[in-house]
């Protein structure tokens, strides 16, 4: 009996970790962008969706049957998304940095609608599928339980690498220190002579890269369809708001809670499973509006 419980417990816990790392990878970009630029980018879900669809395009049309096509796509596509992100930032976001938050929200929402329809125009409205790369279609046994090898060997390492990479970048590099300073006081770093424009574009590019990487990595795990941008952005918002907007450790914590609540929720109380995360978010926002690990939002905006 005890073994049964630990068996179930372990599977559910590990599963929750997989979910958490997946949502963290996608959410990290949004959190970073909000922390530095102060913009809540609705269109982050679109970048995620395009990451997935571009991987599909590479594997189906550009390099069909080429061994290693998936890995090539995994490397190239997020970079392409980053470039799209730079274009997005320069063309649409720069003019509104000093505008009311409402305008920023409306603009990014408008971008979501445009990008969403563009997907239908380019790829059609049908469901599409990206196959898992060769060698990772199967299962791997951990403590006698089966888990998908793709999630274990690809998703987990890449997500952890992103987490570690962001931590090292922000805390151990000069550029990272500037970014951290920007999250605390935008006006001051401008006064100190930092090229804020370049900073913003660079951070946005990084956020877009992470969003695109999330889309690319998660693509083989589900269906690709127009509307997947909306479906993911809801969960992303949940995670970053819970953890604290602008705080990457907060995003990681929010993701962890999200993943485990889902996993255990479905096992023990499937009827109410979706309710828990929303109740938790409501409670946290009432008790601590800036989120679990968030800082107070920058004043003056």
């Amino acid at each position, binding site marked *: 009996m005890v073994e049964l419980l630990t068996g*179930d417990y372990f*599977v*559910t816990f590990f*599963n*929750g970790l*997989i*979910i958490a790392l*997946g949502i963290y990878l996608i959410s990290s970009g949004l959190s970073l962008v909000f922390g530095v630029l102060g913009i809540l980018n609705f269109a982050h879900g679109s970048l995620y969706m395009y990451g997935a669809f571009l991987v599909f395009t590479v594997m189906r049309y550009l390099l069909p049957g080429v061994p290693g096509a998936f890995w090539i796509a995994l490397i190239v596509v997020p970079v392409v998304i980053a470039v799209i992100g730079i274009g997005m930032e320069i063309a649409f976001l720069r003019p509104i940095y000093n505008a009311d938050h409402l305008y920023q929200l409306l603009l990014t929402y408008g971008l979501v609608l445009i990008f969403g329809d563009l997907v239908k125009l380019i790829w*059609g*409205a*049908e*469901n*599409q*599928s990206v*196959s*898992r790369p060769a060698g990772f*279609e*199967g*299962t791997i046994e951990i403590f006698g339980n*089966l*888990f*998908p*090898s*793709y*999630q274990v060997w690809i998703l987990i390492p890449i997500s952890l690498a992103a987490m570690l990479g962001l931590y090292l970048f922000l805390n151990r590099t000069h550029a990272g220190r500037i970014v951290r300073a920007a999250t605390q006081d935008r006006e001051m770093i401008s006064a100190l002579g930092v090229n804020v424009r370049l900073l913003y574009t660079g951070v946005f590019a990084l956020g877009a890269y992470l969003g695109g990487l999330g889309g690319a990595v998660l693509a*083989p*795990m*589900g*269906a690709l*369809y*127009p*509307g*997947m941008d909306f*479906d*993911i952005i809801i969960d992303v918002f949940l995670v970053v708001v819970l953890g604290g907007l602008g705080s990457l450790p907060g995003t990681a914590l929010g993701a962890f809670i999200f993943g485990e609540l*889902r*996993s255990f*929720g*479905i*096992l023990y109380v*499937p*009827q109410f*499973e*979706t309710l828990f995360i929303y109740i938790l978010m409501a409670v946290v926002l009432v008790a601590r509006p800036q989120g679990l690990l968030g800082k107070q939002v920058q004043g003056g905006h």
Partner: protein
Amino acid sequence: MRRRFWGQLVVLLTILTLITTPAMAQQKKSKPIKIGLLYALSGLAAVYTKGTIIGHEIAADEINEKGGVLGRKIEFVTRDNKLKPGIAVKEFRRMVTRDQVDFVMGIISSGVALAVSQVAKEMKVLFVDTIAQTSALTGEQGHPYVVRTNTNSTIIGRTAALAAAVQDWKKFYFIGPDYEWGHVVNDDFWKFLQTKKEGVEKLGELWPKLGERDFSSHITTMLAANPDAVFSSLWGGDLIAFIKQATAYGFFDKTQFISTGAGDLDILKPLGKEMPDGLMATFFYAFDMPVPGKEKENEAFVAKFQEKAGYEPKSGDIAGYVSTYMLAEAIEKAGTTETEKLAATLHGMSFDTVLGPVTIRDFDGQSTFGYHAGFTYTNPDYPFKRLKDVTRAEGEEVLETKAEIEKARAEYRKKGH
């Protein structure tokens, strides 16, 4: 002089009247039959409805080429219901009052169809449901102005139950999208299976939201319960995601999967060889497996559809085709498009369609199409999986009996409807 002028004018007017009246009568006689098509044309359902409308159009073109119905051409007025009952109802009313359609055909979504059916009843306009499967439409919420030229969810669940009853699966788990369709189909399967087989046990049920992306927790939960078979009413992107994720957990080696959606091309095609073999799938129509005796007609339709649409026809696509033919025949038989007569003619009428013989039952307006269950396998002729070991359940075997329908309606009325 003046009298002559007036006299000539009278003659001229008389001649003109005599000439134009038959012409106008002629025009009135060849006034087209206007059929309203009400489907979700935008959004995610567009994938399905596009083909259905092509099915309608192919049938109308064929019929019009042969002279039309009662000498009149069929014309469609197509409107988008955006998958929302409120918008559907508004468009239905508009089609009837402003566009002056003779009747309305349509609807994919069960929820939307139910809403429109009530308006059809209120306005005394005929609504022909070509796809939406909820049994309530012709069951407890049925009325004389609604008919369905397709199967219903009851048949789907029950056909699966018949096919499952001959296997030795005893312990079942259930998963389905958390809305009307998902629940109703699972219920139908379970209730019918219990009447056909003893000792079956329900281990549990899971209701992910419609549009769920991540089934990892559901998969591990079900595997932990160790069922013999899992019955699923998942469809579309949800089903694709589920199959991909479940494969990675070794799900399909551990338990039998019974899926109401896995027989559809929009699941089989994107998945390609990612679709496992040996899944049981129920389906209405498969383009490569025509009803015996209808091979030629089916081939002709498939070829025409493929040319117009660019892909092989699915169940929903041939539904548009067959429905149009059924209505055309009924209009010919009734001699009119007038609602009361047409509705009365449809109820109880039998047809010989490309899907075989079918009757629209007189007491509920439900068609008696048969339904199929088969197992996925790899066929070298196609880049996607096909179905084999197919069994067919005739409509009469699996539809609700007249007594069941009357009972359901009585209970529904008791609840104050």
